Structures are given as C-alpha cells and as structure tokens.
C-alpha cells in the first residue's frame, strides 16, 4: 500500500512538472493550453489515487474517504477538459493568433 501510494504520487508529480515546464516553454496561448489541459487531468487523478492508497496504508481503510476522493476524481475528469475548452474558446474569440512555424508568433 505504502509503495503504491509513493508510486502514484511521484508519477503524478513528474507529470505535473512536465506540465509546468510545458506551460512556460510553449510558444503561444493555444499550445500552452495543450500542456495545461492534459497534464492537469492525469496528474491530479494520479495524486488523488495516491492519496487513497496513503490513507489505506495507515491501517484501517476508510471507504467513505476513498469514495469521496473518487468523487473528486470524477469531477476533475469532467471539469478539466471543459475548462480548457472554455479558455480556448475565449482566447479564440479575443483574437489570439495561433503560432506557426513560418511567421514567428504572428
């Protein structure tokens, strides 16, 4: 149990790190949202799953707590892509130009 918790949380943190670096390094608004929208979902889910195992490793497995965390995971799963979507749409309406290879940042 302890090792499972350790594994899930560390993998989640690695993905979160990748997301943050991507957020800083990508060239424009849209590509940055790529990093933010995807990395967030999986890393949050992994860290929360790790939390379930961490609670389980402390002796008595608390089913209500595990179910509550599963509800949060469910919400993140639906909410994350929808929020990404809303921000992409807002950016497009506000006139953010997509970056492409030829015309740097035009």
């Amino acid at each position: 149990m302890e090792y499972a918790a350790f594994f899930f949380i560390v993998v989640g943190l690695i993905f979160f790190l990748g997301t943050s670096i991507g957020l800083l390094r990508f060239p424009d608004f849209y590509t940055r949202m790529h990093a933010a929208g995807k990395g967030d979902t999986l890393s949050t889910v992994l860290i929360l799953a790790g939390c379930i195992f961490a609670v389980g490793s402390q002796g008595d497995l608390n089913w209500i707590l595990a179910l509550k965390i599963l509800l949060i995971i469910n919400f993140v799963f639906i909410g994350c892509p929808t929020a990404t979507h809303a921000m992409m749409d807002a950016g497009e309406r506000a006139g953010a130009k997509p970056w492409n290879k030829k015309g740097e940042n035009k």
Partner: protein
Amino acid sequence: MKFTSAFILLFLPWLVLSGKYDPLHIGMGIICSTLVALWCKDLLFPNDHISFKKFSKRTIRFIPYMCWLFWQIVLSNIHVLKVALSPRMNDLISPKMVQFKTDVTEEISMFVLANSITLTPGTVTVRVEEKRFLVHALTEKAASGLPGESDEMERRIIKVFEKEN
C-alpha cells in the same frame, strides 16, 4: 421517473459526502434532495424520452470506452511531457487549426466527443457550433487522427451512445 432519477443522483453523493448515518443527517439529506429534485429535475434532464433501459445499456457500454480513454490520456501526457522537455521543441511541433463536421447527433455524444478530443494526444477542442468542431492540433500527426480524417473515436462514441438495441 425524472424525479426519481434526480433524487437518486442527488442523494447518493449526499450519503458519500456527509459520511454520517444518524437519523438527523439522513433526514436532512432526504429533505434537501427532495426539494432540489422537485425544483431542478427539468434542468438535470431536459429531454424526458430516455428510458431507464437505454440509460443502463449506455452506462455499461461506456465503461470499456472509459478504459480506452484513460489509456489515451496516459499517452497524451507522455506526448506533452516529451515535447515540453525536448530541447528542440519548435522542430517537433507544427500547430494548426482544423475544422471538421461530425456524424454524431445527440448532445451527450457531442459533449463526450469534444472532451475526448481534448484528452487525446496533441489535440484540443476550441469550439463546437452545431455539428462543426474547431480543433487546435499540436502536430500534423495529431491532426490526422481527428474524426475528419480517421473516424476511430467517432465510431467508438456512436457505438456507445447511438446504437439502438
């Protein structure tokens, strides 16, 4: 029918989230769920022609789709991680906007399709209008996997939500 499903949908999370099973808490849960279900059942289920049988069939067929989607999410995260950490990032990506028309008809399947596109590698849905999807793709390869060109994801969604029997 609408009221019952709304009540169950509200009362189960109440049981999980409150975590206390004495008469007072369960009673409060029943009262709140009843009131909210009475007022909001038409908001939760705008069209009433969906039968329970259809709903449960969809739910069962949705589970393998969820597993497939989760695998796609893992792939897409590895993809983002790889691109974000590579020193020659600008050679790897060639972003572009793609537009296509979809074959799915129902609202729920369009919602699932849009969110699935966002979660699969290299693509993010920007806008859905009527049946036209505007999608931002990170690479050429990601753009070629979209429903306009290859219809794997669309086929799966139609299988889950729109196939009768």
